[in-house]
């Protein structure tokens, strides 16, 4: 019996080593984060961004539908009238204040679905840790100038 077991064991070790040897030649599935960038699905929902038109005008028209759609009350918008000479956005009004509270946000994406002008989108940035509670409030300035701007707009 003992000899039998010895051969069985040898075959199994051989099989296992075969897997090891085979895998040695494959590319790794993990990434060396943060040295290497993380592969991202196009529909990943990360940190919010506010987008502009190519002319530089803000897309957000301050309609506050995102605020209404937000299930956790994470968005606060304060709209005001556009100066007709120097409009901030096309239309009569723009968002004077636009704030997203990341401590409340559950990244459901309802805001981007509600947005009639595709101004608010969830980007691909996911490293959101911070040192103070105040820094979790994304102001309009932060939202308009994301680190990595060219996000993919998800198809409906």
């Amino acid at each position, binding site marked *: 019996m003992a000899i039998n077991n010895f051969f069985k064991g040898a075959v199994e070790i051989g099989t296992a080593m075969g897997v090891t040897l085979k895998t040695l030649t494959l590319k790794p599935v993990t990434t060396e984060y943060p040295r290497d960038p993380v592969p991202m699905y196009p529909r990943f929902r990360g940190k919010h961004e506010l987008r502009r038109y190519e002319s530089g005008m803000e897309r957000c028209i301050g309609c506050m539908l995102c605020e*209404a*759609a937000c*299930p956790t009350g994470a968005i*606060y918008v304060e709209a005001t*009238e556009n100066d007709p000479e120097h409009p901030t956005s096309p239309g009569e009004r723009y968002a004077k204040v636009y704030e997203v509270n990341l401590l409340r946000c559950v990244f459901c994406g*309802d805001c981007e679905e*509600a947005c009639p002008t595709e101004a608010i989108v969830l980007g691909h940035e996911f490293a959101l840790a911070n040192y103070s509670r105040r820094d979790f409030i994304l102001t309009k300035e932060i939202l308009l100038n994301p680190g990595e701007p060219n996000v993919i707009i998800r198809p*409906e």
Partner: protein
Amino acid sequence: MQPRNWASRSPSFVAIQNSSRWRAAAQTIRYGPGISQLVEAKRHKNKHYLISDTIVLDQERCVVCWRCIRYLEEWEDKPQLGLFERGGATIIDIQPGQPVNAKTSGNIIDICPVGALTNRVARFSFRPWEIERTPSICTQCSIGCNTRLDTRTHTLRRVVGRENMQVNDQWICDKGRFANGWVNDEKRLTTPLVRKDGTLQPVSWPEALTLVAEKLQAIKSSAGADAIGGIGSAKLANESNYLLQRFMRQLIGTNNIDHRDGADIAALPSGLPALADLMKPQYGPDPKYDVIMLFGVDPSEELPILDLHLKRAVRRGKAQLIIAHPRRIELTRYNGPFMQYMPGGEVALLNGLLHLAAKAKEDKNSDAVKLVAKVTEKQLREVAGVEVDAAKRAVELLANAKNALIIYGPMPARGANGVQVRQALQNLANYTGHGERLAYVGLDANSQGCRDMGVLPNALPGHVGLEDELGRPHLEQLWGVTLPVTPGKSYSQLLDSAGDSIKALYIMGADPASERPNWAANLDKLDFLVVQEIFLTETAQMADVVLPAVSWAEGNGTFTNLERRVQRAAKALGNPQTKAAPDWMILDHLAGQFDANWAHDSAQSVTAEISHAVPLYAGMTWNAIGDQGRQWDAFGLRTSDDYAAAEQPVLTAEAGELRLMDGTVLYDGGTLFGLTRQLSNVAFGLHVAVNPADAARLGLEDGTAVKVRNRYGILTLSLKLDATVKAGVAWIPASLAGAPVGALLNGGLEVVSIEKTDN
């Protein structure tokens, strides 16, 4: 087109469903925006079109239903909007270059069915589904219009009218609707201030209140209770005023308590029920009053909703207006007799009217006629400056009227002359048979409530005399003290003797320093000045202690309007970052420093105490008052039918001198009004208005910088030509920012000379 898939499951759908405009939104969500069957290009019209500084018209949204046009024609009687173009191109527009300026024009925003007219002050600052709506009232004048305050994130966003058929129907004036920027202003006081080393420095509440109590007690023991005075405010709620007078009477022990336009004004409570009748709905030509006389009151500027009620009485009820005013006020266009009297000729005018009434009746022996035996038509013409024809028409109307209402305001009723004017009015009203329908209207939100609460030096709460045998023991038992019996000093007496026999003042919600420079100097001489305010006013800047209070929108309170209706102003918002406290809480804690335990836990419990203390307010608890207010019972009001002589010293003006007139304008640019920047163009400005004839005589032109001078002081203003002002009169409205006309008037009637400034 397919519906957008987010809509059917998104929470925004739920939010929209809860909003008042959800139907249209739901249709779009369900069926999509749709493809138009029209092949023509869409007609483009003005979308962002200002028809006044405060109202924006979107002509593309407009469905040409005419409601705005009808409102301006049927209520305001000012056809400032009209239909232009023909057929499908019809638009609503203003006359070229003439913006809508009716005093209640904002109501067309409320009645627009499609939202084509929007409120420029409030628009875009909220969406309808995210505001909290609180039923409240307006506190800008004494009508007490019912309003709804829309708030969001601890700020007041919008004020709209609320229906109360006994007060304002559903209309409110533009000042009440738009001029609310001060509520959210950054300059509001947020912390108690105490003067240390010459400057006001923030301190904690206990420190400030302890200091107030210590100082007041020290002054009370060294100079006596009557060296301390209290000034309430007719702009504040009944609760605030009741507790202030209780504090002064119970804990200080003095009757030195009054408010502006308080004991200095000859008021008359017996006409209150008559005013209520004027404000009731009127549907057809069945007049409650066939003749209405306005004496020295201009509802269009002072009480805009009363102006609407009067126009309704004239146009639907076919009432006749008799107007006596030194200015050709707007309501004079209804072609009733208009008597443009000289300031200082009030009593001469009224005595002249009584004389003419007696003459028309051929009455020579009654008590009333004996009082005016020496009066002649010449006096009427020369002293009062009134045409005899107009006076005769007025007397004829009054004598033949079934129900005539006579309204007078604070302008002719002020000071020593005011008592005479009131007596002359009573003589005339009694003689023509309308004595019980002679009514005084105060102008501040709680003018009537302040009187009811006993913020007067000569009356306890509920119009109870200081030595009344029934009312006084009732209050003494309730408060557990013996009340002082000597009458105190009135508002002007308190301020005139401040720094002299008055050592300390407790001023709540009043700004006497801005009224007259000599009062400001007197306040500076005080040993101790406490000011309870919402802004650092001129008076507050001179104070030793400033206590921050909250406005009507941030606390609960009840206000009594000009026809004695007690109404609730509920708390609509609260600023979480401020240390400011409601008046009742400040006074309760201050009473605690005097070892009194008043033990109110809310404004409502003060309201409940008032219902015990003031017999007129019996049963008026917070819940009982309700959303539509309650009138107190006027059963006990008695009209005096005695006749007494009324006389007034003749005010002589030298050549080149003009008689000075004040009076109130709606858009005065005062402390609070000036903080709504959208209204800066309509504010009155620093003008003295004179008749063009006078200006020509004095060699002055429109817009000249002039010095207005008399023995009390000098004001530098710009001259404005105004044909509505009577020749021989200079008009400077009260409470213009930085133009204290009170300085020149000094509480009486005065003349001024006007000259060009040197440079």
